[in-house]
């Protein structure tokens, strides 16, 4: 069914990698929201959302990124996004997310940006 959403968590070099797959809509966004909440309240502020397997996102999914990013950045961390497929990227793009979020090609590049302490985008 085109409603399944999946989230797998790994850690690397002090960053939490959340690999998203499937459909992130108003039905599945709460699951993603809880995952970010758990990380943040557990003191993990360096997060990477690996979107390679993400087939679909609606505004409810985008909202999860929006509502956490300020607090995470204030705590010295960031949510970096990587490996977004074109049909999902067009949604981020039309709303202007690339100006606010750090979006890179691959996990390795996201990790590198945390390592090099690349300036976090600011709102």
């Amino acid at each position: 069914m085109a409603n399944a959403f999946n989230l797998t968590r790994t850690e690397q070099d002090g960053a939490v990698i959340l690999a998203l797959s499937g459909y992130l809509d108003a039905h599945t966004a709460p699951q993603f929201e809880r995952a970010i909440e758990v990380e943040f309240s557990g003191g993990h502020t360096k997060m990477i959302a690996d979107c390679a397997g993400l087939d679909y996102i609606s505004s409810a999914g985008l909202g999860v990124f929006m509502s956490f990013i300020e607090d995470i950045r204030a705590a010295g961390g960031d949510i970096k996004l990587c490996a977004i497929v074109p049909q999902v990227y067009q949604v981020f793009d039309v709303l202007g997310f690339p100006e606010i979020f750090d979006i890179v090609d691959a996990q390795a590049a996201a990790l590198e940006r945390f390592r090099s302490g690349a300036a976090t985008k600011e709102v």
Partner: protein
Amino acid sequence: MPSFDFLLQVPSSTDNLAMIRDFVAKVGEKAGFDEKEVTKLALAVDEACSNVIEHAYGGNNANKEVRVRGSFDAEQVVVEVVDTGRGFDPGQIPVKDVEQLVRERRSGGLGWRLIRSIMDEVQYQMVPGEKNELRMVKKIRKGA
């Protein structure tokens, strides 16, 4: 080309958004949209129906119905989303850009923006005591 009419009605639950997207995607395919256009059409209708479930009906409610009518001819696809819940005035939706929403730590406020950026025409009509209807039109661009 004659016009073709499709109708889907499902209980008001976000669990049914996938079914709505699949329905709309098929209507879009039949109308001749390419994959990219089909995905955008389904996204706009997902946003409209998510709003109905969340705002018009105030959350999942198996006793309320979300009604989606899709039709097309050679020129355009028309999708109507109908509910019998609380109506609203789209003119009152504050226009905020993503920067502002992020500063306010808001998780919402992008649905209408997406709908308007995807569809060529958007009309909302309240028929008090009867129904609310959001009518969205997307033109079919030949060879686009």
